């Protein structure tokens, strides 16, 4: 990402009234000007969120220490995806890196956890949040498919099991006063009314919609979100406003969901999907099904999928 492109994006967002920006990567801290970019966006008046794995080189950590300690945690937030040290063991050196990072940047860090297996555990997170003084808000996501690539991901039929397992930690969330926030991909019908009531009462952040993240790559390509990063990419320069981008993605979602309403058969005709309360799971699941299901009726999608098939 060049300075010119960063300024273009900042200006584009600013004139469209958008005041929050996320730096996602890959791993954005590997960019040689990562700290410069963060400070610039903060100086422009944006709320900045950085997504990181927390494995920062000592030189970068020194820069964080030198330049970012005076930033307000309300203005600068780091979402750090953490892994269970037992289920996903790390090298000793990585553990040290992570602890060094959390020791320094704990108060700026929102813990994140990506569910990629049904037997996930969250116990370790409560300890880490306490010890390192992280923000008391857990960002929970599920592993999504990436159409066109062979990756492991959570199947829709596992969703109810995931929710049940998640609610075994209910008492710990309450005790430690940790709020829960969902990344996209969760379906409303996977939760009982009682569970939905608890979420409303203790978290207030239930989210069952799959909205475009509007990811922009260094070459200024624009795509719906990371799982759909190779699907119907456009250039940011083709759009004059965020409203145009929203219209573009809404049209794309409409085209896809007219073919496949959601991750479950029941999504077709579901009143919560029609009322836009729930998107019927991630759009990436629907696009993935296009790859396996033929014939494809929409030419535009078919062309994209043909391209994707080539890379499978």
């Amino acid at each position, binding site marked *: 990402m060049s300075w010119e492109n960063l300024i273009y994006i900042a200006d584009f967002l600013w*004139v469209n009234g958008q005041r929050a920006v996320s730096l996602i990567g890959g791993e954005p801290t590997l960019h040689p000007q990562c700290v410069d970019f963060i*400070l*610039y966006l903060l*100086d422009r008046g944006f709320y900045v969120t950085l997504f990181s794995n927390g494995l920062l080189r000592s030189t970068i950590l020194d820069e964080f220490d030198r330049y970012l300690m005076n930033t307000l945690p309300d203005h600068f937030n780091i979402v750090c995806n953490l892994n269970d040290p037992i289920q996903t063991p790390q090298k000793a050196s990585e553990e040290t890196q992570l602890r060094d990072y959390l020791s320094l940047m704990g108060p700026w860090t929102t813990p994140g956890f990506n569910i990629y297996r049904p037997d996930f555990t969250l116990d370790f997170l409560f300890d880490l949040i306490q010890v390192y003084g992280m923000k008391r808000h857990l960002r929970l996501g599920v592993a999504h498919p990436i159409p066109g690539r062979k990756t492991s991901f959570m199947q829709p039929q596992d969703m109810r099991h995931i929710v049940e397992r998640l609610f075994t930690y209910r008492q710990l969330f309450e005790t430690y006063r940790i709020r829960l926030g969902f990344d996209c991909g969760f379906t409303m019908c996977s939760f009982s009314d009682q569970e939905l009531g608890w979420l409303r009462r203790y978290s207030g952040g239930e989210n069952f919609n799959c909205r475009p993240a509007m990811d922009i790559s260094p070459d200024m390509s624009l795509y719906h979100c990371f799982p759909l990063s190779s699907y119907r990419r456009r250039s940011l320069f083709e759009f004059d406003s965020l409203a145009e981008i929203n219209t573009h993605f809404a049209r794309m979602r409409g085209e896809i969901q007219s073919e496949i309403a959601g991750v479950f058969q029941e999504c077709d005709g579901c009143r919560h999907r029609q009322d836009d309360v729930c998107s019927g799971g991630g759009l990436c699941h629907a696009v993935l099904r296009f790859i396996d299901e033929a014939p494809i009726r929409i030419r535009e999608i078919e062309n994209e999928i043909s391209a994707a098939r080539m890379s499978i």
Partner: protein
Amino acid sequence: MKFPRLVCQYRSNSFEKLQGHSIVLRVERTADIGQGIERVRKSGNSLFCVIVDLGKPLAEIELDTNLSKIPLAVMAPSVGRYSDLSRRIGELRKFNLRVYLRCGNPEHISAIRILSSLGIATCVDFTDGAVCWDGLIDLSTYALLERAPHAPIDPFCFIADNFRPVKSLEWGRTVFDDPNSFLHLDENGRVALSERCLVAGEFVADSIQEITSIDDFHPIREKGHAWRTYFRDCHECAFCPGWRICLGKFSSGTSAQGKCSSFFGELMDLIAQFQNSNQLANESSLWQL
């Protein structure tokens, strides 16, 4: 015509022998700024602005907060690392300053855009002749057509505001390089038409008293009419579409491969767009009235 402002070095005492002039004070040490302003005021002259030329990156320049109301022209060889500059952005915004950066280096072009986007006025300094033309096209587009709020980038904004198709515009004044607006004095009070002439020792008068009227002073009048020689000599610049803005400023050959020509051609288009959009904005407000 108004008498030009006089650009004087702090270390010389040339302005202390003058009365009633508008002085541009050039300083090379931060400690001299306050004292220099005081000396200009006591000398019976008025201060137009201070040129701060410390030879340090902008990120390393410390300015006294008492100077916040003084117009400052900060000549910086570079901006320095953004992380270091960031700590000072809030403070810099409080000053009445304009940052001058040379445009031979693409990093400087980026730095100008960064500063402008942060609300700090900047100016592209063409005086050393090296120019990164490709970057300048983007920068001038940003300066004139970007919708997001940003500080002016001169000379583009100056040119766009003042350019009229039927009249020549001398925009060298944005970098103190126009004898109708600025004359440069050395420590002995000798007068040069530009800083380049001052450094080269090319003086047009031994003292400012020799110049009673700008209109009657031959070297200044001559310089103002220098553009005529391009037509007399059938110079290729005289046939260039960008001539009406450039007026042959880059004819010395350093701007090879006609890049200056395409840049000024593009700038003409940008100015037309800029002026059209301003005109439309004014028309609509008149209609609403």
